[in-house]
């Protein structure tokens, strides 16, 4: 075991491409992490063009590193995940916000695993645009792609992220079609969670990857559509969410409002 392995570097990764609101959101993610975890390191991956524009410098102040992505595809996030400068990385979507000090202990949640995800549970299926295509145990999008805690010291994890990046793009282009996709309606192929589903459950290359779900699952990605009760409690067995996901009302095309 080398020194690097004994003292792994730890940090967060946020990716912003396509639209300016994601850059604004990414800065907010970074600052909300720092609100709760002062020494945290956060790296931003964004379009090189944005980095080169001096008007954007003000958004980069709090980041540990700012790294250009090779393109501006919606899912450059997987490229950012593969190229994280940290051994232990917590990837976060740009439309989340940290709401609890437990973010400081988030890396402990790996607990010897290569990856940790939030499970998209059946009881919450109504909150997602698409969720299932059959009654089988795995006939649905099982993993949330909005956050992912992972350990890059296993080279297979880096391969996984790179394959996720390319397989997703090839799925969109109709070039990647493993037999497991045969029962899946075409509409599901727009979601990067389907590629993630394939790689985690079916890809023989990644059988040895040790992954799990967060024990306190939705604390780590509580969608605003899940509801906030008047008495301050939350739903779906969630107590004191660490990460709030503001995706349901977000105007991703930027035509309706500020975000």
């Amino acid at each position, binding site marked *: 075991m080398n020194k690097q392995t004994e003292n792994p570097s730890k940090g967060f990764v946020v990716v912003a491409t396509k639209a300016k609101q994601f850059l604004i*959101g990414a800065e907010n993610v970074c*600052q909300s992490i720092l609100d709760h975890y002062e020494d945290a390191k956060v790296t931003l991956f964004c379009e090189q063009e944005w980095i080169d524009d001096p008007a954007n410098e003000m958004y980069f102040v709090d980041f540990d590193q700012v790294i250009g992505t090779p393109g501006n595809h919606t899912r450059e996030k997987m490229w950012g995940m593969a190229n994280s400068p940290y051994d232990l990385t917590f990837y976060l979507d740009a439309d989340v916000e940290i709401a609890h000090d437990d973010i400081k202990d988030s890396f402990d949640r790996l607990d010897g695993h290569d990856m940790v995800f939030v499970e998209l549970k059946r009881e919450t299926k109504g909150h997602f645009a698409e969720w299932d295509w059959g009654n089988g145990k795995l006939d649905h999008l099982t993993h949330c792609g909005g956050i992912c805690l992972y350990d890059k010291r296993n080279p297979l994890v880096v391969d996984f992220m790179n394959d996720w990046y390319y397989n997703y793009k090839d799925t969109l282009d109709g070039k990647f079609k493993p037999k497991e996709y045969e029962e899946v309606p075409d509409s599901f192929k727009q979601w990067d969670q389907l590629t993630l589903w394939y790689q985690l459950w079916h890809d023989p290359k990644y059988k040895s990857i040790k992954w799990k779900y967060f024990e306190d699952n939705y604390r780590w990605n509580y969608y*605003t559509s899940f509801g*906030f009760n008047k008495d301050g409690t939350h739903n779906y067995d969630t107590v004191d969410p660490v990460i709030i996901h503001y995706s*349901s009302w977000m105007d991703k095309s930027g035509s309706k409002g*500020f975000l």
Partner: protein
Amino acid sequence: MKKEWKSPFWETAAKDRLTVRLNITHDDGSFSTSVARVSKYDENGKITSDYNEVLEQNPIESIDKFTEERLERHRQEREAKVKKQQERNEAKRLEDLFNAKLATFEIPEIKQSKNRKMKAKIRKAKNSVEMQAYATILLMEIMNEQADGESK
């Protein structure tokens, strides 16, 4: 012709009118179904034959039970609907507040401010009044600092 009166429930607290599903199997073997309203009394105050038929097939206790269960089910559905709407409203309020906070952080003076503590207070504000109050305090501080700088 065979008439079956199914799932009757009282429409009124006086229990003088029922709503009931009527299934009819006709002599030619065809089948039809409809929702019927059955009054206990006809215009002359006599108990109707339909009412008697319903009660022959459905004891009054089972009609009472079905009526209560139906009311309870409807009450629960109404409550669930109201709760869901409240949750949606609250989620929408928080999404709007989130957007407003990001807009606040885009104010150049606030964006450039190094006062992390006050910026965290803006981010953690529970409503727009609290958010605007902290934003105003921060802007006042910035303006006071600028005024101090200019007077020196």
